[in-house]
Protein backbone atom coordinates (compact mmCIF):
# COMPACT_ATOMS: atom_id res chain seq x y z
CA UNK A 1 0.00 0.00 0.00
CA UNK A 2 2.74 2.45 0.85
CA UNK A 3 4.26 1.86 -2.54
CA UNK A 4 0.95 2.69 -4.19
CA UNK A 5 0.61 5.79 -2.06
CA UNK A 6 4.03 6.95 -2.94
CA UNK A 7 3.45 6.38 -6.62
CA UNK A 8 0.24 8.36 -6.45
CA UNK A 9 1.93 11.15 -4.57
CA UNK A 10 4.53 11.41 -7.26
CA UNK A 11 1.65 11.66 -9.67
CA UNK A 12 0.37 14.86 -8.13
CA UNK A 13 0.03 17.33 -10.92
CA UNK A 14 1.19 20.82 -10.28
CA UNK A 15 -0.26 23.79 -11.98
CA UNK A 16 2.62 26.17 -11.74
CA UNK A 17 3.08 29.68 -12.94
CA UNK A 18 -0.54 30.63 -13.20
CA UNK A 19 -0.13 33.95 -11.45
CA UNK A 20 -1.55 36.71 -13.54
CA UNK A 21 -4.09 34.52 -15.25
CA UNK A 22 -6.90 35.38 -12.91
CA UNK A 23 -10.33 36.21 -14.12
CA UNK A 24 -13.57 36.95 -12.39
CA UNK A 25 -17.06 36.12 -13.44
CA UNK A 26 -19.16 38.93 -14.83
CA UNK A 27 -21.80 38.91 -12.12
CA UNK A 28 -20.91 41.56 -9.56
CA UNK A 29 -21.39 40.39 -6.01
CA UNK A 30 -21.73 42.92 -3.25
CA UNK A 31 -19.10 42.63 -0.58
CA UNK A 32 -21.67 42.43 2.12
CA UNK A 33 -24.16 40.03 3.55
CA UNK A 34 -26.51 38.88 0.82
CA UNK A 35 -30.12 38.06 1.58
CA UNK A 36 -31.02 34.52 2.40
CA UNK A 37 -32.17 32.69 -0.64
CA UNK A 38 -34.47 29.74 -0.89
CA UNK A 39 -33.00 26.28 -0.79
CA UNK A 40 -30.48 25.68 -3.53
CA UNK A 41 -32.22 22.46 -4.36
CA UNK A 42 -35.49 24.12 -5.27
CA UNK A 43 -35.45 22.09 -8.41
CA UNK A 44 -38.99 21.40 -9.55
CA UNK A 45 -39.94 17.94 -8.44
CA UNK A 46 -41.63 15.72 -10.89
CA UNK A 47 -44.68 13.75 -9.93
CA UNK A 48 -43.80 11.27 -7.22
CA UNK A 49 -43.85 7.63 -8.15
CA UNK A 50 -46.68 7.00 -5.77
CA UNK A 51 -49.61 6.69 -8.10
CA UNK A 52 -50.23 3.08 -8.88
CA UNK A 53 -50.53 2.72 -12.59
CA UNK A 54 -50.73 -0.04 -15.05
CA UNK A 55 -47.25 -1.35 -15.45
CA UNK A 56 -44.29 0.42 -13.92
CA UNK A 57 -44.89 3.72 -12.24
CA UNK A 58 -43.15 6.71 -13.83
CA UNK A 59 -39.62 7.24 -12.60
CA UNK A 60 -39.05 10.81 -11.40
CA UNK A 61 -36.18 12.77 -12.88
CA UNK A 62 -33.24 12.61 -10.54
CA UNK A 63 -32.51 15.72 -8.50
CA UNK A 64 -29.17 17.41 -9.19
CA UNK A 65 -27.19 15.63 -6.50
CA UNK A 66 -28.52 12.26 -7.57
CA UNK A 67 -27.86 12.88 -11.23
CA UNK A 68 -24.27 13.03 -10.20
CA UNK A 69 -24.28 9.47 -8.93
CA UNK A 70 -23.82 6.71 -11.45
CA UNK A 71 -25.73 3.46 -11.12
CA UNK A 72 -22.47 1.57 -11.12
CA UNK A 73 -21.71 3.16 -7.76
CA UNK A 74 -23.84 0.42 -6.20
CA UNK A 75 -21.22 -2.16 -7.00
CA UNK A 76 -18.38 0.10 -5.94
CA UNK A 77 -19.81 0.15 -2.40
CA UNK A 78 -18.84 3.74 -1.67
CA UNK A 79 -20.19 5.65 1.31
CA UNK A 80 -18.94 8.57 3.39
CA UNK A 81 -16.67 7.51 6.25
CA UNK A 82 -17.59 9.06 9.59
CA UNK A 83 -15.30 9.36 12.60
CA UNK A 84 -16.39 7.14 15.50
CA UNK A 85 -17.85 8.89 18.57
CA UNK A 86 -15.55 6.89 20.85
CA UNK A 87 -11.81 7.55 20.89
CA UNK A 88 -9.24 4.83 20.36
CA UNK A 89 -7.41 3.63 23.48
CA UNK A 90 -3.87 5.08 23.71
CA UNK A 91 -2.21 1.68 23.28
CA UNK A 92 -4.20 0.99 20.09
CA UNK A 93 -3.17 4.16 18.24
CA UNK A 94 -1.50 3.47 14.86
CA UNK A 95 1.84 5.20 15.55
CA UNK A 96 3.92 2.20 14.47
CA UNK A 97 2.23 2.21 11.04
CA UNK A 98 3.12 5.84 10.24
CA UNK A 99 6.16 6.68 8.17
CA UNK A 100 8.07 9.98 8.34
CA UNK A 101 11.22 11.33 6.70
CA UNK A 102 14.55 10.54 8.32
CA UNK A 103 15.14 12.11 11.75
CA UNK A 104 11.48 13.04 12.26
CA UNK A 105 9.73 11.37 15.18
CA UNK A 106 6.05 11.01 16.07
CA UNK A 107 4.53 10.47 19.52
CA UNK A 108 1.12 10.73 21.14
CA UNK A 109 0.56 14.22 22.53
CA UNK A 110 -2.95 13.60 23.89
CA UNK A 111 -5.71 11.06 23.30
CA UNK A 112 -9.25 10.32 24.41
CA UNK A 113 -10.77 13.24 22.44
CA UNK A 114 -13.41 11.79 20.08
CA UNK A 115 -13.29 13.51 16.66
CA UNK A 116 -10.28 15.73 17.45
CA UNK A 117 -10.28 18.23 14.54
CA UNK A 118 -8.96 21.80 14.37
CA UNK A 119 -5.97 22.73 16.54
CA UNK A 120 -4.98 26.07 18.09
CA UNK A 121 -2.41 26.93 20.74
CA UNK A 122 -3.00 29.63 23.35
CA UNK A 123 -0.39 32.12 24.60
CA UNK A 124 0.10 30.11 27.80
CA UNK A 125 0.49 26.85 25.91
CA UNK A 126 -3.03 25.44 26.18
CA UNK A 127 -3.90 23.40 23.08
CA UNK A 128 -7.50 23.83 21.94
CA UNK A 129 -9.06 21.00 19.94
CA UNK A 130 -12.39 21.29 18.13
CA UNK A 131 -14.82 18.64 16.89
CA UNK A 132 -16.76 18.55 13.64
CA UNK A 133 -19.85 16.39 14.25
CA UNK A 134 -19.85 16.45 18.04
CA UNK A 135 -20.91 19.38 20.22
CA UNK A 136 -17.71 20.15 22.10
CA UNK A 137 -14.33 21.82 22.40
CA UNK A 138 -11.45 20.24 24.27
CA UNK A 139 -8.48 21.92 25.91
CA UNK A 140 -5.21 20.17 26.59
CA UNK A 141 -3.47 21.94 29.44
CA UNK A 142 -0.24 20.96 31.10
CA UNK A 143 -0.74 19.49 34.54
CA UNK A 144 2.49 18.72 36.39
CA UNK A 145 4.26 18.51 33.07
CA UNK A 146 1.78 16.04 31.56
CA UNK A 147 -0.93 17.01 29.05
CA UNK A 148 -4.39 16.77 30.60
CA UNK A 149 -7.56 16.78 28.47
CA UNK A 150 -10.60 18.81 29.54
CA UNK A 151 -13.89 19.32 27.74
CA UNK A 152 -14.40 23.06 28.15
CA UNK A 153 -17.65 23.53 26.19
CA UNK A 154 -20.52 21.27 25.10
CA UNK A 155 -23.89 21.84 23.43
CA UNK A 156 -22.37 23.48 20.34
CA UNK A 157 -23.53 22.79 16.81
CA UNK A 158 -20.62 21.31 14.82
CA UNK A 159 -17.94 23.69 16.22
CA UNK A 160 -15.22 22.79 13.71
CA UNK A 161 -13.62 26.25 13.44
CA UNK A 162 -11.49 27.68 16.23
CA UNK A 163 -8.94 30.48 16.42
CA UNK A 164 -6.98 32.09 19.26
CA UNK A 165 -6.01 35.75 19.14
CA UNK A 166 -4.77 38.02 21.97
CA UNK A 167 -5.98 35.56 24.59
CA UNK A 168 -9.47 35.17 23.10
CA UNK A 169 -10.79 31.88 21.72
CA UNK A 170 -13.12 32.30 18.72
CA UNK A 171 -15.44 29.43 17.80
CA UNK A 172 -17.23 28.98 14.47
CA UNK A 173 -20.26 26.71 14.70
CA UNK A 174 -22.66 25.79 11.92
CA UNK A 175 -24.55 29.09 12.05
CA UNK A 176 -22.78 31.38 14.48
CA UNK A 177 -19.42 32.62 15.67
CA UNK A 178 -18.73 33.24 19.33
CA UNK A 179 -15.80 34.11 21.58
CA UNK A 180 -14.39 33.52 25.03
CA UNK A 181 -12.12 36.33 26.26
CA UNK A 182 -9.11 35.44 28.38
CA UNK A 183 -9.93 31.80 27.70
CA UNK A 184 -6.90 30.23 29.33
CA UNK A 185 -8.08 31.59 32.68
CA UNK A 186 -11.56 30.13 32.12
CA UNK A 187 -10.94 26.51 31.18
CA UNK A 188 -13.23 25.35 34.00
CA UNK A 189 -15.93 27.97 33.57
CA UNK A 190 -15.81 28.80 29.87
CA UNK A 191 -18.77 30.77 28.56
CA UNK A 192 -19.07 31.77 24.91
CA UNK A 193 -20.54 35.09 23.73
CA UNK A 194 -22.02 35.23 20.21
CA UNK A 195 -20.49 37.89 17.97
CA UNK A 196 -21.91 36.94 14.55
CA UNK A 197 -24.90 34.88 13.49
CA UNK A 198 -25.82 36.07 10.01
CA UNK A 199 -25.23 32.59 8.59
CA UNK A 200 -27.37 30.02 6.80
CA UNK A 201 -28.50 26.86 8.59
CA UNK A 202 -27.57 24.28 5.96
CA UNK A 203 -25.89 21.22 7.44
CA UNK A 204 -24.16 19.91 4.28
CA UNK A 205 -20.71 21.55 4.36
CA UNK A 206 -22.02 23.68 7.21
CA UNK A 207 -18.91 23.16 9.34
CA UNK A 208 -16.37 25.96 9.17
CA UNK A 209 -12.69 26.67 9.35
CA UNK A 210 -11.71 29.82 11.24
CA UNK A 211 -8.51 31.87 11.20
CA UNK A 212 -7.51 35.38 12.25
CA UNK A 213 -5.84 37.30 9.43
CA UNK A 214 -2.92 39.71 9.57
CA UNK A 215 -5.54 42.47 9.31
CA UNK A 216 -7.03 41.36 12.66
CA UNK A 217 -10.18 40.08 11.01
CA UNK A 218 -11.79 36.63 11.31
CA UNK A 219 -11.82 34.62 8.09
CA UNK A 220 -14.15 31.64 7.60
CA UNK A 221 -15.86 29.65 4.88
CA UNK A 222 -19.57 29.27 4.15
CA UNK A 223 -19.57 26.02 2.17
CA UNK A 224 -21.77 24.90 -0.69
CA UNK A 225 -24.82 23.21 0.89
CA UNK A 226 -24.61 20.18 -1.39
CA UNK A 227 -22.33 17.97 -3.39
CA UNK A 228 -23.03 19.90 -6.58
CA UNK A 229 -25.75 22.56 -6.96
CA UNK A 230 -26.31 26.21 -7.77
CA UNK A 231 -25.57 27.65 -4.32
CA UNK A 232 -27.60 30.46 -2.75
CA UNK A 233 -25.87 33.84 -2.59
CA UNK A 234 -25.09 33.22 1.09
CA UNK A 235 -22.91 30.20 0.34
CA UNK A 236 -19.85 28.86 -1.48
CA UNK A 237 -17.59 31.67 -0.29
CA UNK A 238 -14.98 32.82 2.21
CA UNK A 239 -16.07 35.74 4.38
CA UNK A 240 -14.31 37.96 6.85
CA UNK A 241 -15.60 39.98 9.80
CA UNK A 242 -14.09 42.28 12.41
CA UNK A 243 -13.22 40.69 15.75
CA UNK A 244 -16.48 42.06 17.15
CA UNK A 245 -18.53 40.52 14.35
CA UNK A 246 -19.11 43.74 12.40
CA UNK A 247 -18.38 44.63 8.77
CA UNK A 248 -18.90 41.28 7.02
CA UNK A 249 -17.25 41.07 3.62
CA UNK A 250 -16.96 38.39 0.99
CA UNK A 251 -13.29 37.55 0.44
CA UNK A 252 -13.61 35.01 -2.35
CA UNK A 253 -16.38 33.38 -4.36
CA UNK A 254 -17.14 30.08 -6.10
CA UNK A 255 -15.71 27.83 -3.39
CA UNK A 256 -17.24 24.41 -2.70
CA UNK A 257 -15.82 23.72 0.74
CA UNK A 258 -12.78 24.80 2.73
CA UNK A 259 -11.45 23.09 5.82
CA UNK A 260 -8.00 24.67 5.92
CA UNK A 261 -6.69 28.23 5.50
CA UNK A 262 -3.54 30.10 6.46
CA UNK A 263 -1.79 33.34 5.56
CA UNK A 264 1.68 33.32 4.01
CA UNK A 265 4.06 34.49 6.75
CA UNK A 266 5.87 36.96 4.45
CA UNK A 267 3.46 37.99 1.68
CA UNK A 268 0.35 37.79 3.97
CA UNK A 269 -1.59 36.25 1.06
CA UNK A 270 -4.46 33.93 2.05
CA UNK A 271 -3.99 30.30 0.93
CA UNK A 272 -6.66 27.61 1.34
CA UNK A 273 -7.41 24.01 0.51
CA UNK A 274 -10.65 23.28 -1.37
CA UNK A 275 -12.50 19.98 -1.60
CA UNK A 276 -14.11 19.27 -4.96
CA UNK A 277 -17.30 17.45 -5.89
CA UNK A 278 -18.05 13.74 -5.61
CA UNK A 279 -19.43 11.30 -8.18
CA UNK A 280 -17.79 12.76 -11.25
CA UNK A 281 -15.36 9.88 -11.65
CA UNK A 282 -12.82 7.81 -9.78
CA UNK A 283 -9.93 10.04 -10.84
CA UNK A 284 -11.56 13.45 -11.29
CA UNK A 285 -11.88 16.16 -10.23
CA UNK A 286 -8.71 17.08 -8.40
CA UNK A 287 -8.95 18.73 -4.99
CA UNK A 288 -7.16 22.07 -4.92
CA UNK A 289 -4.70 24.37 -3.21
CA UNK A 290 -5.70 27.99 -3.88
CA UNK A 291 -4.54 31.47 -2.98
CA UNK A 292 -6.44 34.76 -2.96
CA UNK A 293 -4.49 37.47 -4.76
CA UNK A 294 -7.55 39.61 -5.42
CA UNK A 295 -9.65 39.72 -2.24
CA UNK A 296 -13.31 40.33 -2.94
CA UNK A 297 -12.90 39.47 -6.60
CA UNK A 298 -11.41 36.00 -6.98
CA UNK A 299 -13.90 33.32 -8.02
CA UNK A 300 -12.68 29.73 -7.87
CA UNK A 301 -15.30 28.27 -10.17
CA UNK A 302 -17.92 26.34 -8.16
CA UNK A 303 -20.24 24.98 -9.53
CA UNK A 304 -19.14 25.72 -13.12
CA UNK A 305 -15.58 24.43 -13.07
CA UNK A 306 -14.32 21.38 -11.14
CA UNK A 307 -10.71 20.93 -10.08
CA UNK A 308 -9.62 24.03 -11.97
CA UNK A 309 -9.70 22.26 -15.32
CA UNK A 310 -13.04 20.50 -15.97
CA UNK A 311 -16.25 22.24 -16.93
CA UNK A 312 -18.88 20.63 -14.71
CA UNK A 313 -21.09 18.21 -16.67
CA UNK A 314 -24.24 19.74 -15.13
CA UNK A 315 -23.42 23.42 -14.54
CA UNK A 316 -20.43 23.95 -16.81
CA UNK A 317 -22.36 24.46 -20.05
CA UNK A 318 -21.76 27.95 -21.38
CA UNK A 319 -18.74 28.39 -19.11
CA UNK A 320 -15.03 27.82 -19.38
CA UNK A 321 -12.57 27.13 -16.59
CA UNK A 322 -10.55 30.02 -17.99
CA UNK A 323 -13.14 32.39 -16.46
CA UNK A 324 -12.04 31.46 -12.95
CA UNK A 325 -9.04 31.74 -10.66
CA UNK A 326 -6.92 28.65 -11.12
CA UNK A 327 -5.54 26.59 -8.25
CA UNK A 328 -1.80 26.78 -7.60
CA UNK A 329 -1.73 23.00 -7.14
CA UNK A 330 -3.97 20.01 -7.66
CA UNK A 331 -3.86 17.70 -4.66
CA UNK A 332 -5.31 14.48 -6.01
CA UNK A 333 -8.89 13.31 -6.70
CA UNK A 334 -11.13 12.93 -3.64
CA UNK A 335 -8.11 13.15 -1.32
CA UNK A 336 -9.87 15.71 0.91
CA UNK A 337 -7.06 18.10 1.80
CA UNK A 338 -8.14 19.71 5.09
CA UNK A 339 -5.75 21.49 7.45
CA UNK A 340 -2.90 23.51 5.97
CA UNK A 341 -0.28 25.56 7.82
CA UNK A 342 2.83 27.45 6.86
CA UNK A 343 5.83 26.34 8.88
CA UNK A 344 7.35 29.25 10.80
CA UNK A 345 9.19 27.35 13.54
CA UNK A 346 12.88 26.72 14.12
CA UNK A 347 12.95 23.01 14.95
CA UNK A 348 12.54 21.54 11.44
CA UNK A 349 15.34 21.94 8.86
CA UNK A 350 15.53 25.35 7.14
CA UNK A 351 14.14 23.91 3.89
CA UNK A 352 10.72 23.65 5.58
CA UNK A 353 10.58 27.35 6.52
CA UNK A 354 7.45 28.92 5.00
CA UNK A 355 6.55 25.64 3.30
CA UNK A 356 2.90 24.52 3.57
CA UNK A 357 2.04 21.32 5.41
CA UNK A 358 -1.25 19.88 4.15
CA UNK A 359 -3.24 17.10 5.82
CA UNK A 360 -5.08 14.98 3.27
CA UNK A 361 -7.94 13.40 5.21
CA UNK A 362 -8.36 10.69 2.57
CA UNK A 363 -10.96 9.69 0.01
CA UNK A 364 -14.28 7.91 0.33
CA UNK A 365 -15.68 8.46 -3.17
CA UNK A 366 -13.05 6.27 -4.80
CA UNK A 367 -12.71 2.50 -4.92
CA UNK A 368 -9.05 2.51 -3.90
CA UNK A 369 -8.59 5.00 -1.11
CA UNK A 370 -5.94 7.67 -1.51
CA UNK A 371 -4.80 10.52 0.69
CA UNK A 372 -4.61 9.67 4.35
CA UNK A 373 -1.29 11.47 4.70
CA UNK A 374 0.43 14.77 5.34
CA UNK A 375 2.25 16.32 2.40
CA UNK A 376 4.49 19.36 2.29
CA UNK A 377 4.33 21.94 -0.49
CA UNK A 378 7.51 23.92 -1.07
CA UNK A 379 6.93 27.30 -2.71
CA UNK A 380 8.82 29.37 -5.24
CA UNK A 381 9.72 32.98 -4.40
CA UNK A 382 6.59 34.11 -6.29
CA UNK A 383 4.38 32.07 -3.96
CA UNK A 384 3.48 29.37 -6.46
CA UNK A 385 4.20 25.72 -5.80
CA UNK A 386 7.64 24.32 -6.58
CA UNK A 387 7.11 20.74 -5.39
CA UNK A 388 4.90 18.60 -3.20
CA UNK A 389 6.39 15.74 -1.20
CA UNK A 390 5.01 13.15 1.21
CA UNK A 391 5.67 13.91 4.87
CA UNK A 392 3.64 11.43 6.92
CA UNK A 393 2.16 8.36 5.22
CA UNK A 394 0.57 5.14 6.41
CA UNK A 395 -2.96 6.09 7.51
CA UNK A 396 -4.42 3.70 4.92
CA UNK A 397 -3.93 -0.03 5.33
CA UNK A 398 -5.57 -2.62 3.05
CA UNK A 399 -7.90 0.06 1.69
CA UNK A 400 -9.12 0.94 5.20
CA UNK A 401 -8.26 3.84 7.46
CA UNK A 402 -6.19 3.24 10.56
CA UNK A 403 -6.39 7.00 11.19
CA UNK A 404 -7.27 10.21 9.36
CA UNK A 405 -5.11 13.35 9.65
CA UNK A 406 -7.02 16.63 9.91
CA UNK A 407 -5.18 19.71 11.11
CA UNK A 408 -1.77 20.86 12.26
CA UNK A 409 -0.51 23.53 14.60
CA UNK A 410 2.91 24.46 15.96
CA UNK A 411 4.10 24.37 19.53
CA UNK A 412 6.47 27.13 20.66
CA UNK A 413 9.48 24.82 20.26
CA UNK A 414 8.67 24.43 16.55
CA UNK A 415 7.34 20.88 16.83
CA UNK A 416 4.15 19.94 14.99
CA UNK A 417 0.83 18.88 16.47
CA UNK A 418 -1.35 16.77 14.19
CA UNK A 419 -4.98 15.81 14.89
CA UNK A 420 -6.56 12.49 13.90
CA UNK A 421 -10.37 12.58 14.07
CA UNK A 422 -10.72 8.86 13.37
CA UNK A 423 -8.86 7.95 16.57
CA UNK A 424 -9.63 11.04 18.63
CA UNK A 425 -5.96 11.79 19.21
CA UNK A 426 -3.34 14.49 18.70
CA UNK A 427 0.20 13.52 17.79
CA UNK A 428 3.42 15.51 18.19
CA UNK A 429 6.11 15.44 15.52
CA UNK A 430 9.67 16.48 16.37
CA UNK A 431 12.93 16.67 14.47
CA UNK A 432 16.25 15.64 15.91
CA UNK A 433 19.13 13.81 14.32
CA UNK A 434 20.76 12.85 17.64
CA UNK A 435 17.71 10.94 18.76
CA UNK A 436 17.81 8.86 15.63
CA UNK A 437 21.51 8.09 16.00
CA UNK A 438 21.21 6.98 19.59
CA UNK A 439 18.25 4.76 18.69
CA UNK A 440 20.18 3.10 15.95
CA UNK A 441 23.02 2.04 18.24
Amino acid sequence: MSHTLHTRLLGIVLLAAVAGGFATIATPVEAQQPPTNPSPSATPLTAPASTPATGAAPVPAAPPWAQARPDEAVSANLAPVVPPPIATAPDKLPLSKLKLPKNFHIEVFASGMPQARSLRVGDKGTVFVSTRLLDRIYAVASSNGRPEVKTILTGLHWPNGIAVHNGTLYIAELNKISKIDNVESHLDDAKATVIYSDLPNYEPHGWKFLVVGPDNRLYFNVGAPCNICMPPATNAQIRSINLDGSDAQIVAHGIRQVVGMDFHPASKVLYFTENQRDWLSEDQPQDKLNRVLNPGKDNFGFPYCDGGDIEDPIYGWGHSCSEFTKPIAQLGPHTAPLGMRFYTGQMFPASYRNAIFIARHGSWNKSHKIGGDVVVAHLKPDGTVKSIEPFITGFIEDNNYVGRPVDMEWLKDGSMLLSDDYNGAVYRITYGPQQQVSRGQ
Partner: protein
Amino acid sequence: MLHSLAVDAALSQKLAPCLACHGAEGQSQTENVPSLGAQQPQYTVIQLFLFREKMNIADPMNDMAKGLSDDDLQAIAAALAVLPAPQPPADPGDSARLDGARALAEQNHCNVCHRPDFSGQNNIPRVADQREEYLLKTLRDYKTGARHGYDATMAEVLQPLSDVQLVELSYYLAHHR
Protein backbone atom coordinates in the same frame (compact mmCIF):
# COMPACT_ATOMS: atom_id res chain seq x y z
CA MET B 1 -32.44 -16.15 21.18
CA LEU B 2 -30.68 -14.41 24.00
CA HIS B 3 -29.74 -17.74 25.54
CA SER B 4 -27.49 -18.42 22.61
CA LEU B 5 -25.56 -15.22 23.20
CA ALA B 6 -22.37 -15.15 25.13
CA VAL B 7 -23.56 -12.28 27.24
CA ASP B 8 -22.91 -11.94 30.89
CA ALA B 9 -25.57 -11.30 33.45
CA ALA B 10 -24.72 -7.63 33.69
CA LEU B 11 -25.21 -7.10 29.98
CA SER B 12 -28.47 -9.06 30.02
CA GLN B 13 -29.66 -6.74 32.72
CA LYS B 14 -28.74 -3.70 30.65
CA LEU B 15 -30.37 -5.14 27.56
CA ALA B 16 -33.65 -6.08 29.23
CA PRO B 17 -35.20 -2.59 29.16
CA CYS B 18 -34.11 -2.16 25.52
CA LEU B 19 -35.75 -5.38 24.43
CA ALA B 20 -38.92 -4.70 26.42
CA CYS B 21 -39.85 -2.01 23.90
CA HIS B 22 -37.73 -2.83 20.84
CA GLY B 23 -38.65 -6.54 20.83
CA ALA B 24 -36.75 -9.52 22.26
CA GLU B 25 -36.56 -11.17 18.85
CA GLY B 26 -35.23 -8.08 17.07
CA GLN B 27 -38.62 -6.94 15.83
CA SER B 28 -40.53 -4.12 17.50
CA GLN B 29 -44.29 -4.46 17.95
CA THR B 30 -44.60 -0.90 19.22
CA GLU B 31 -45.50 2.13 17.17
CA ASN B 32 -42.64 4.58 16.57
CA VAL B 33 -40.17 2.24 18.27
CA PRO B 34 -37.67 0.86 15.76
CA SER B 35 -36.75 -2.78 15.32
CA LEU B 36 -33.10 -3.29 16.23
CA GLY B 37 -32.41 -6.89 15.17
CA ALA B 38 -29.27 -7.28 13.02
CA GLN B 39 -28.70 -3.54 13.19
CA GLN B 40 -25.21 -2.37 12.22
CA PRO B 41 -23.29 -2.10 15.50
CA GLN B 42 -21.39 1.06 14.50
CA TYR B 43 -24.72 2.74 13.80
CA THR B 44 -26.16 1.63 17.14
CA VAL B 45 -23.12 2.89 19.05
CA ILE B 46 -23.43 6.30 17.39
CA GLN B 47 -27.16 6.56 18.15
CA LEU B 48 -26.71 5.52 21.78
CA PHE B 49 -23.86 8.01 22.08
CA LEU B 50 -26.04 10.82 20.68
CA PHE B 51 -28.79 9.92 23.18
CA ARG B 52 -26.36 9.71 26.09
CA GLU B 53 -24.75 13.05 25.25
CA LYS B 54 -28.18 14.66 24.63
CA MET B 55 -27.17 15.51 21.08
CA ASN B 56 -30.40 13.82 19.98
CA ILE B 57 -33.25 14.65 22.32
CA ALA B 58 -35.72 11.78 22.16
CA ASP B 59 -37.70 10.75 25.21
CA PRO B 60 -37.20 8.19 26.76
CA MET B 61 -33.88 7.33 25.13
CA ASN B 62 -31.86 10.10 26.81
CA ASP B 63 -32.75 8.68 30.22
CA MET B 64 -32.21 5.09 29.08
CA ALA B 65 -28.71 5.86 27.81
CA LYS B 66 -27.71 7.99 30.78
CA GLY B 67 -24.91 6.42 32.76
CA LEU B 68 -23.91 3.88 30.11
CA SER B 69 -20.15 3.66 29.60
CA ASP B 70 -18.48 3.58 26.20
CA ASP B 71 -17.94 -0.15 26.74
CA ASP B 72 -21.66 -0.55 27.50
CA LEU B 73 -22.58 1.15 24.22
CA GLN B 74 -20.35 -1.23 22.28
CA ALA B 75 -21.55 -4.33 24.15
CA ILE B 76 -25.22 -3.45 23.67
CA ALA B 77 -24.67 -2.72 19.98
CA ALA B 78 -22.88 -6.04 19.49
CA ALA B 79 -25.67 -7.94 21.25
CA LEU B 80 -28.39 -6.28 19.15
CA ALA B 81 -26.47 -6.98 15.96
CA VAL B 82 -26.81 -10.74 16.44
CA LEU B 83 -30.56 -10.69 17.07
CA PRO B 84 -32.59 -11.82 14.03
CA ALA B 85 -33.31 -9.21 11.37
CA PRO B 86 -36.89 -7.92 11.30
CA GLN B 87 -39.16 -9.84 8.94
CA PRO B 88 -41.30 -8.37 6.17
CA PRO B 89 -45.04 -8.16 6.84
CA ALA B 90 -47.22 -11.08 5.73
CA ASP B 91 -48.99 -8.80 3.28
CA PRO B 92 -46.58 -8.51 0.34
CA GLY B 93 -47.87 -5.02 -0.49
CA ASP B 94 -49.12 -3.36 -3.64
CA SER B 95 -46.77 -4.51 -6.40
CA ALA B 96 -47.24 -1.48 -8.67
CA ARG B 97 -46.64 0.86 -5.76
CA LEU B 98 -43.58 -1.14 -4.71
CA ASP B 99 -42.18 -1.08 -8.26
CA GLY B 100 -42.50 2.69 -8.39
CA ALA B 101 -40.93 3.11 -4.98
CA ARG B 102 -38.08 0.75 -5.83
CA ALA B 103 -37.28 2.90 -8.83
CA LEU B 104 -37.41 5.96 -6.61
CA ALA B 105 -35.02 4.36 -4.11
CA GLU B 106 -32.59 3.40 -6.85
CA GLN B 107 -32.90 6.78 -8.53
CA ASN B 108 -31.89 8.38 -5.26
CA HIS B 109 -29.21 5.77 -4.66
CA CYS B 110 -30.48 4.71 -1.27
CA ASN B 111 -29.16 1.28 -2.28
CA VAL B 112 -25.56 2.55 -2.58
CA CYS B 113 -24.87 3.40 1.06
CA HIS B 114 -27.57 1.19 2.58
CA ARG B 115 -26.62 -1.62 0.17
CA PRO B 116 -28.91 -3.32 -2.36
CA ASP B 117 -30.52 -5.49 0.35
CA PHE B 118 -30.82 -2.45 2.68
CA SER B 119 -28.92 -4.27 5.42
CA GLY B 120 -26.66 -1.20 5.84
CA GLN B 121 -22.94 -1.11 6.47
CA ASN B 122 -20.71 0.31 9.19
CA ASN B 123 -22.33 3.53 10.43
CA ILE B 124 -25.14 3.29 7.88
CA PRO B 125 -28.19 1.55 9.32
CA ARG B 126 -30.15 -1.49 8.21
CA VAL B 127 -33.50 -0.12 7.03
CA ALA B 128 -34.96 -3.26 5.42
CA ASP B 129 -38.29 -4.16 7.04
CA GLN B 130 -38.03 -1.41 9.60
CA ARG B 131 -41.40 -0.24 10.93
CA GLU B 132 -43.07 1.90 8.27
CA GLU B 133 -44.29 4.72 10.51
CA TYR B 134 -40.86 4.94 12.17
CA LEU B 135 -39.14 5.16 8.78
CA LEU B 136 -41.48 7.92 7.66
CA LYS B 137 -41.08 9.92 10.86
CA THR B 138 -37.29 9.55 10.65
CA LEU B 139 -37.13 10.64 7.02
CA ARG B 140 -39.36 13.64 7.72
CA ASP B 141 -37.31 14.62 10.77
CA TYR B 142 -34.04 14.40 8.83
CA LYS B 143 -35.49 16.47 6.03
CA THR B 144 -36.82 19.22 8.30
CA GLY B 145 -33.79 19.13 10.57
CA ALA B 146 -35.92 18.09 13.56
CA ARG B 147 -33.49 15.21 13.93
CA HIS B 148 -29.82 15.95 13.41
CA GLY B 149 -27.96 13.18 11.72
CA TYR B 150 -24.52 12.25 12.96
CA ASP B 151 -23.33 13.82 9.73
CA ALA B 152 -25.07 15.83 7.01
CA THR B 153 -25.61 12.99 4.55
CA MET B 154 -29.33 12.40 5.12
CA ALA B 155 -30.10 16.12 5.33
CA GLU B 156 -28.37 16.52 1.99
CA VAL B 157 -29.91 13.61 0.12
CA LEU B 158 -33.46 14.31 1.32
CA GLN B 159 -33.44 17.99 0.33
CA PRO B 160 -34.95 17.43 -3.12
CA LEU B 161 -37.51 14.77 -2.10
CA SER B 162 -41.19 15.57 -1.59
CA ASP B 163 -43.21 14.34 1.36
CA VAL B 164 -45.15 11.99 -0.91
CA GLN B 165 -41.86 10.46 -1.99
CA LEU B 166 -40.87 9.93 1.63
CA VAL B 167 -44.16 8.09 2.15
CA GLU B 168 -43.38 5.83 -0.80
CA LEU B 169 -39.82 5.13 0.29
CA SER B 170 -41.03 4.15 3.75
CA TYR B 171 -43.64 1.83 2.25
CA TYR B 172 -41.04 0.20 0.04
CA LEU B 173 -38.43 -0.32 2.77
CA ALA B 174 -41.01 -1.63 5.25
CA HIS B 175 -42.09 -4.25 2.69
CA HIS B 176 -38.63 -5.24 1.53
CA ARG B 177 -38.25 -8.88 0.46
